[in-house]
């Protein structure tokens, strides 16, 4: 049965990596990801995982080495945050294009500048359109579970793409909570052997990978990538159903929380969903018809599931922990597209940039009908 331990999100993910025992982990340290690789490196040093850790000189090199390893035929994982992901970004696009099933733990952290080490989702949103799968955890348990689901999803024959497991920096990476770990022997059984169609080191079937594509083929390759990430939605459900049989915890691409009969709903990503749930419970106890839709898979975005879950809700407020200066914040833009024509009133608030706290009182104000463009911002004003 499950073994309950007091672990931070970072430690929990390091345990997941130890249990998956990937062949190669090229990685460069950065706050708030560092506890993940620090804990994992100790497991390797203690002989608890057989992984080859490659201490590269930058995140650009980390992802480059990860592509080489993953395509050579080695199960490959890495981890980063913020500026590390920004430096890696060029190569993240290439990893997706080369269909390298790399699993990456992301400790979400604000992008500079000003330089800041605390949580927001601007790093994730920077690579929104790179073609990699992005799953968001609400807490340490989910970060652990999604890290076990991720290799299966990345290596799914219909997908074959990098998968990022995103956990809020500090709020999850550095906060200790009880986490139920699977027995060590259950994890290799669940993740299985690494298998990709054309490992570069298969000398019996030599291949060239990552070729140049001119105007006559580039468009077709991009469409192929789009189809692969679309396939990650049904593949997630398939893998999550199997995971539920092993772990007893069932994940979906979205989580509907007390949306039955709700007239007002919040849509959120990551750890804030936990805070919103507490407020929803409190308000439901007081008889108010409120609920939460948590997005687990931000990429691919489960538009149909979102539209279905919010079909009968009158007012939807989308909480974005990243802004898009001069445009609609990313999560709000997705939800707006998913709900287009539904007739519900759509609102949105940017919150929590650079690690600013989101308080239950802020959420109560949203449910009470407050319509604030920037929650917690000094000088914030209501929408006209």
């Amino acid at each position: 049965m499950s073994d309950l331990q007091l672990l931070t999100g970072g430690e929990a993910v390091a345990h997941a990596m130890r249990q998956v025992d990937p062949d190669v982990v090229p990685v460069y340290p950065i706050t708030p990801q560092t506890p993940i690789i620090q804990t994992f490196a100790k497991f390797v040093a203690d002989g608890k995982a057989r992984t080859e850790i490659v201490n590269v000189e930058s995140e650009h090199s980390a992802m480059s080495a990860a592509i080489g390893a993953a395509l050579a035929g080695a199960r490959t994982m890495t981890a980063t945050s913020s500026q590390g992901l920004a430096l890696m970004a060029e190569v993240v696009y290439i990893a997706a294009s080369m269909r390298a099933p790399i699993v990456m733990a992301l400790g979400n952290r604000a992008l500079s500048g000003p330089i800041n080490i605390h949580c927001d989702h601007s790093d994730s949103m920077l690579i929104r359109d790179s073609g990699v799968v992005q799953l968001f955890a609400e807490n340490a348990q989910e970060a652990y579970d999604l890290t076990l689901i991720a290799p299966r999803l990345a290596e799914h024959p219909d997908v074959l793409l990098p998968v990022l497991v995103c956990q809020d920096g500090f709020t999850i990476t550095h906060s200790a909570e009880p986490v139920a770990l699977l027995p060590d022997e259950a994890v290799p059984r669940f993740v299985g052997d690494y298998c990709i169609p054309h490992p570069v080191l298969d000398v019996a079937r030599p291949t060239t990978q990552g070729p140049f594509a001119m105007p006559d083929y580039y468009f077709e390759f991009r469409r192929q990538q789009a189809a692969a990430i679309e396939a990650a939605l049904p593949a997630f459900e398939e893998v999550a159903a199997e995971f539920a049989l092993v772990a007893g915890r069932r994940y979906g691409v979205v989580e509907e929380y007390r949306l039955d009969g709700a007239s007002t709903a919040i849509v959120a990503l990551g750890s804030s969903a936990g805070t919103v749930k507490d407020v929803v419970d409190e308000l439901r106890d007081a008889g108010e018809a409120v609920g939460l839709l948590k997005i687990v898979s931000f990429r691919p975005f489960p538009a149909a599931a979102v539209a279905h879950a919010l079909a009968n809700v009158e007012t939807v407020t989308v909480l974005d922990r990243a802004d898009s200066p001069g445009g609609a914040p990313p999560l709000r833009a997705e939800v707006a597209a998913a709900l287009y024509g539904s007739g519900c009133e759509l609102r949105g608030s940017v919150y929590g940039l650079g690690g600013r706290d989101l308080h239950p009182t802020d959420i109560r104000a949203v449910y009470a009908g407050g319509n604030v463009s920037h929650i917690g911002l000094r000088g914030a004003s209501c929408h006209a």
Partner: protein
Amino acid sequence: MAELSSWNELPLGGTVGPADSPRPLTGGWRTGEVPAADVSRCVNCLLCWIYCPDSAIVLEGETFTGFDLDYCKGCGICAEVCPADAIAMVAE
């Protein structure tokens, strides 16, 4: 040129196998000089084989026997690295 493939017919991620691309004979790119070997001087160190950027050094087993002029572009690196002066560039 064969008809262009649709997006859903392309190999995964653009993986190219040996039979998937034409094999033009690039030796035609030479511009007047071609390597010539005096096999009697060759010490079979295989430096030419290591350095040749076009895999145009021909071996029999592990023994140097000559050049594959279908692919040799006449760059002269083999003549330059040969420690036994067994390779010279000559007019073609």
